[in-house]
Every structure is written in C-alpha cells, then in structure tokens.
C-alpha cells in the first residue's frame, strides 16, 4: 500500500497503543509513511491524532506496540534523541517561545536537529514576511506568522519525517492556503510528511494516502483518489 518501491517505509507503526494513565487514547493501530510521501490522518477531536504524534516524538506517557523509524525501533528513546535522528514536530497550537525573537525561535530548531539541510535564509525564502520580522518577539506575530515560524523551526531541524499537528487550527483560510502550498515543496525534498488535520478537504487534497481515526482506532485507510467523500465522512463520524 505504500507509494515507495521495495525498500521499507520510513516510518512504520505496528499495533501501537498510547495511554494517559488508564485511558487508552490510541488503540493498536498500524500505519506507515514512506520517504517523500504525504500521509494524512483525519478524525474528529479526541480521536487520538495528537496522541499518535506525541508518541512518535517520544512524549507519550506510556505506549504499547512498536514505532519503527528508518529501520530502528524508537522504544526508550528520548525526544532530543528522536529529533536528532530526523523527526520534527510542528506542535498543535504553534508552541513558540513567546519572549524569544523569530530568529531565536528558528535557530533553536536548527540546534536540536541534524544541523544540515535548510539554512535560515532558505526558510526566509519560504516565508518572506518572517525575514522582515526576524528580530521581533514571537508573541508579537499574528497567528499565521507564528505558524510559519513553527513550520520553519521544524524544517530547520533537517527532518526526514515531518509531523504536522493541526497547522490550520485557528487560522484564516487564505493563510492556510499559503501554508499548504508549501507541503508539496517539502515533499519534493524527499521528506516524509504525516499531517494531522480536522479539515478533511484540505488534507485529502494534498495527501498521497490517508488514515481515518475514530476513538483511537483506524476505521478507514486508502488513497484520496480511490475513495469517495461519502465513504470518508461515514468513517470520520463512525456512522
């Protein structure tokens, strides 16, 4: 089902369950992402999407199952180690450092990553408006600009796998359009992208494959072109 040829997928999640105390947020799911592939996870609030990304980046309380990245089992690895291996997260709600400048926020992304890949200048080419505001404090930026910084910060870590958690949340449609225009460009660089979204149209439009999550389980998986919208809606809402 992967779009990449014979070699193993970049990310392979096998029977993964994610727990917060006793609560099971993700229930024994299987999922893969290939290099240069865009995979969407869609689902309503509370479906377990963010928990899945947190587990991959190493911030879940407790998990069962396996997360295999680039051939390696990530069990027991800390987030700094995982990021240094080439997985970067654009967290839900941006989560910038409010009192630091745009440039400082971005540079932190570079410091924790593989210290290769994109340079600060190239990120400013992606987001020209940030270049003008590079010395401003992050808290002074608009929502859309902050999201750009969050995305730029993740890209500067030179990831092989990019995790995007609800990047459209709280932003005007025009801004979201701009952000999503970048996704294919990022894919072009061979980076695998796992996008979590509530906006079905948006994410299916850009995805190679998708999974639909409902109450922690995968209810549907396939390619956007091959699945009708009605079927997707059914599985989104669990009808």
């Amino acid at each position: 089902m992967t779009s990449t040829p014979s070699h193993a997928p970049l990310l392979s999640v096998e029977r993964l369950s994610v727990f917060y105390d006793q609560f099971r947020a993700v229930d024994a799911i299987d999922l893969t992402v290939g290099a240069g592939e865009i995979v969407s996870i869609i689902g309503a609030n509370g479906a377990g999407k963010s928990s899945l990304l947190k587990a991959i980046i190493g911030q879940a309380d407790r998990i069962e199952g396996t997360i295999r990245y680039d051939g390696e089992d990530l069990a027991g690895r800390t987030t700094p180690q995982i990021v240094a291996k080439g997985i970067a997260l654009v967290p839900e709600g941006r989560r910038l450092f409010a009192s630091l400048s745009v440039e400082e926020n971005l540079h932190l992304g570079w410091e924790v990553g593989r210290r290769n890949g994109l340079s600060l200048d190239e990120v400013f080419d992606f987001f020209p408006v940030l270049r003008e505001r590079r010395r401003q404090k992050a808290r002074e930026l608009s929502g859309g600009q902050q999201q750009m910084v969050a995305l730029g910060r993740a890209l500067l870590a030179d990831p092989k796998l990019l995790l995007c958690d609800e990047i459209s949340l709280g932003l005007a449609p025009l801004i979201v359009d701009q952000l999503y225009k970048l996704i294919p460009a990022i894919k072009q660089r061979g980076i695998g992208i796992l996008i979590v979204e509530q906006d079905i149209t948006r994410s299916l439009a850009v995805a190679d494959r998708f999974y639909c999550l409902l109450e922690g389980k995968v209810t549907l998986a396939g390619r956007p072109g091959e699945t009708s919208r009605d079927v997707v809606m059914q599985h989104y809402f669990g009808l």
Partner: protein
Amino acid sequence: MAGALANQIIQGILLGGLYALFAVGLSLSVGIMRFVNIAHGDLIVLVSFVLLSLTSKLGLPLVLATAIVLPITFGGGYLLQRLLLQRVLGQSVLAIVLVTFGLSVIVQNALQGTYGADTRLIPGGDIVTATIHLGGGINIGVLPLTIFMSAVALVFALDRLLYRTRLGARIRAVSDNVASANLVGLKSAHIYAVAMGIVGVTMGISAAFMAVSTNFDPTSGPSRLLVAFEAVVLGGLGSLWGTLAGGIIVGVAQSIGAQFDAGWQLLAGHLVFLAVFLLRPQGLFPK
C-alpha cells in the same frame, strides 16, 4: 550636614552593590526557574566557609581560592538542580518551599557542626581599609567600590549571556515554556541545571566578596536571603538591572537607618521594602 548625608547615601549605594551580588543569583533562579530558593543565603554562607578553610587552613590567597571554588560551585549548582530541585520543580508550591527550606536548615546546622557558631571574617589585606577621600566629608572605601563595580560587571555579563548567546536563548526558551521545549527536542532538565550552575557561580563570587567585607557565621544565611529577596522583588521579577536597583534601595535605606541607631539598620531596610512594595508591587522594572 549635607556632606554627612551624602556620604551615607553613597555608602548605602555601595552597600547595595554587595546586596545586588547576593541577589543576582536569586534573581536568575526566580526569573528562569520560577522558584524562590530559600536556601539561597545559606548556600552563599557555605561557600564563604569553604573559602575560609582554603585561605586559613591551606594558606591560599583569596583570589586563588575563589578561582578554585568557582568551577565547584558551578558543578554544585548543576547537581543540586539535576538531582534534587528538578524533582519538585513542576509540583506544588508547598513542595518547593519545603525542600529548599529543609535544605536551608540542613546547611545551617551542618556548618554549625563543622565550624562552630563563632563569627568569622577572611582577612583581605590592605584593600579592606584603603579609602579614597573625595573631600566634603565624602569617603569611599576601595573594597565597597570594587564590590559595587563587580556587581555592575556581573549584571552586565549575565545580561549578555542571557540575551546574546545561544545558551541564553536556550535557557530563555525553557523558562518560557518547558512543555514546548520538550516537544521541540530541547533537553530541559540539562538546561535548567546549567542555569543553576551559573547561579552557583554567582553565589561563589558573592561569597568571596562577602567573606572579606562582613562578619559571617553559620546562621547568616537567612538575612542574606531576605535582603536578596527584597532586592529582587523591588527591582521587578525577571529583571537583572532591576535587581541591582533594588539592592541599592535596600542598601541606602539601611545606611540611613543605621545613622539613627545601629538597631535601626535592618528595620529601616525592611520598612522601606514594604513601603516601596506596597506602592509598586510589580517592582521597578517588571518584565
């Protein structure tokens, strides 16, 4: 008369430099890690006693002893944070107050058991008595002046460290939002510990100056804590230059109070603190 008052004010300002030295470390831990270390003063006194041992038992000159001790204070601060304080940092107020309070009691009593209760002073040589006579009744001690200038230099250096270096950016990031820092891949526990190591170094520097300019004994810690606390709160939480200003205010208040009566020195400092605090609770330069 005016000359005498001016002299008192100047002595107060210089005294404020010493207080700022005590306070700068507290200001960092308050601003960065957002907790008040109740053992702050006691740890400074601990270093002073270590310096005392190095200078009196081993006969080392104070400057050399300090140079030896500073890396140890960095390591001490790092380990204290990493092993003990990190475990209570995210928890309730009660936990942090109690752990640092317990630490304060332990340090005071361990010092008393080791060194006895006598007050001590490290001989500083000629610099202690050297005075610059400016005329008009104004005399400036060379040691207080050196301390004051060191305080300014230290605040300047820390300010640059925090705002102009990569390490400083990392420290400020973790301080802003430790959860975000974790998500993004920063090693927050390590970064906090480095910050505490820096606090340890400031404690080492202030211990050296304190040991040579004022009497100290195992129970001197709390009074240093209170003065540091007042300087930090008056200056505005999170502002290093504010802490310097706060220290000066307390120093001047104490200096003028001491003119009435030796017993009024401390009380005057506290009363001025309360008055300024009530007028401007957020401090002079709040962040």
